[in-house]
């Protein structure tokens, strides 16, 4: 029997470390094991016994790329527990800071991590040598997102201005107006981005995914909504634990999130887009159509276009919020602790991020549960790889490795909170 083992270098350009193992025997894929995610058990334990007010700041440390998402899910969960409703301008500012994080995170992924795959560069540094203008545009776009985050969050990485009930300090109208000028440039740059990535070569690959995202009657989802899918799921965030489970995977420390009834599912920009196309702004919809996307997108390699479209939307939405902003009477509403359990789920750049807290009457956290998007996509990524390798089994080893890495990066897996680098092994027997 022909036996061949290919040990491949770490998968760079993914936050953190993990390993991907593909086993091929007699021309068939016999095993795919992806270990990129460690659940944030340390943080869940670290939160126990702490006051509710600390939760947004502590959980923001879980990820260097999406601190706002952790803050938002923590705030919403605790406000759910204590029956707090924030004022409209605060709700708008939360959406604005989230726009900043989407722009920042998507620009990083599209330009620095994903585009080099499509253009045949090993990394963004080599790409920058040939396309410095493009890379500079990506960095400036990312910076525009950072500026939104730092104005509202106090600091761009690990913002400290977000609190349960609102903000510690609200920016002035003048400060917001200063952002608007930069966001107008960013919106044009995002439109350019969509036109650029639409020209990339995309492997023909589609699957009948179950997309899961928030859906809100009045807006493209960020902070609020019901959890829906294209296969009939339609629940409130409070019902999450009744429908989703985390399964231990015997061969690793990883947990796979599954829908109890149907198994693997898909979260992130492509799921949001496919379930909420009608809620995008006309500009974002037009950009998507011009890039050749329909109202649903099932090719995960095209996620790079969807991220571009979401950047257009985030800039557009940020400008809408700034244009109509009225100063709130107070930066935060009063929060009165009570014995309760609270549930929060918001749309992190990479997909739904679920938090649950049980609290006592002094506002002390008795237990916490956090399910990040990357853990939810892990099983779907494995399923993609199984199908992709099966369909391309005759591909030269080097090209197959390249495209497997690219297939993982389709999901922008964020594992900065977990391990450090991903080793890819393809074993042929």
């Amino acid at each position, binding site marked *: 029997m022909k036996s061949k083992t290919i040990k491949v270098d770490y998968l760079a350009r*993914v*936050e953190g470390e993990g390993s991907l193992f593909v086993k091929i025997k007699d021309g068939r894929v016999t095993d795919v094991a992806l270990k990129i995610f460690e659940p944030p058990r340390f943080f869940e334990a670290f939160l126990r016994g702490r006051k509710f007010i600390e939760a947004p700041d502590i959980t923001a440390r879980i990820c260097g790329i999406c601190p706002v998402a952790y803050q938002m899910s923590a705030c919403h969960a605790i406000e759910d527990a204590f029956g707090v409703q924030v004022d409209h301008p605060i709700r708008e500012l939360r959406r604005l800071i989230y726009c900043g994080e989407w722009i920042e995170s998507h620009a990083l992924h599209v330009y620095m991590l994903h585009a080099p795959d499509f253009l045949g560069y090993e990394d963004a540094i080599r790409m920058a040598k040939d396309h410095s203008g493009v890379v500079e545009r990506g960095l400036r776009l990312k910076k525009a997102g950072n500026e939104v985050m730092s104005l509202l969050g106090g600091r761009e990485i690990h913002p400290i201005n977000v609190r349960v009930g609102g903000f510690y300090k609200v920016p002035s109208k003048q400060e917001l107006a200063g952002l608007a000028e930069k966001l107008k440039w960013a919106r044009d740059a995002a439109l350019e981005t969509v036109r650029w990535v639409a020209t990339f070569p995309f492997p023909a690959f589609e699957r009948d995914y179950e997309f899961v995202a928030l859906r809100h009657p009045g807006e493209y989802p960020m902070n609020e909504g019901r959890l829906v899918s294209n296969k009939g799921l339609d629940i409130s965030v409070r019902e999450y634990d009744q429908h989703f489970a985390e399964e231990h995977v015997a061969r690793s420390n990883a947990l796979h999130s599954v829908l109890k009834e149907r198994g693997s599912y898909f979260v992130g920009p492509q799921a949001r887009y496919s379930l909420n196309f009608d809620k995008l702004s006309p500009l974002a919809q037009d950009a998507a159509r011009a890039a050749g996307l329909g109202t649903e997108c099932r090719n995960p390699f095209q996620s790079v276009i969807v991220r571009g479209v979401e950047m257009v939307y985030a800039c557009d939405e940020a400008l809408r919020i700034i244009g109509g902003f009225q100063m709130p009477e107070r930066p935060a509403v009063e929060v009165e602790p009570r014995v309760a359990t609270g549930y929060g789920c918001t749309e992190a750049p990479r997909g739904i991020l679920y938090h649950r807290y049980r609290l006592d009457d002094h506002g002390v956290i008795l237990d916490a549960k956090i399910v990040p998007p990357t853990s939810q996509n892990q099983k779907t990524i494995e399923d993609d790889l199984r199908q992709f390798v099966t369909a391309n089994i005759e591909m030269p080893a080097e090209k197959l490795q390249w495209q497997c890495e690219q297939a993982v990066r389709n999901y922008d897996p964020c594992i900065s909170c977990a391990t450090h680098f991903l080793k890819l092994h393809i074993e042929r027997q």
Partner: protein
Amino acid sequence: MSTAQPDIRIIGIGNAYRSDDGAGIAVAKRVRERITDGAAIIEQSGDGAALLELWKGAGTVILVDAVHSGEAPGTVHRLDACAAEIPSRLFHYSTHGFGVAEAVELARALNQMPARLIVYGIEGKNFGAGVALSAEVEEASAAVTLRILNEVRSLKEGNP
């Protein structure tokens, strides 16, 4: 005494909740306690791409991050990034997918390097979840802090 303050930025990188990965942050905090003016001290946890912004327009940048290259825990590397490429093997054990080595090389490709860029790498032992530094890394962090204070003093006196 020099009248023109040198524009010095000291950037500590890492995640304080990933044990030894927090070495750079620990050094930044220690340096901040000892320097009152003449240098900006920045703690940064996140992606390398943000570093290009942080050092824009700076004269001298001193970066500190945890590394994992297989040498003994607590080993200190000092690299002059303007003089030679940063070996990316050093920084792959950083929690930043687009890390320090990538940021430096990208800056070089885009002509966005600061005039002077010194990188300190501290060999870590434990990168698991946790808030404490290993004893070796704790000791190395104190040593790197002193070395940085000396460098800053020389720069201010005009003998880099």
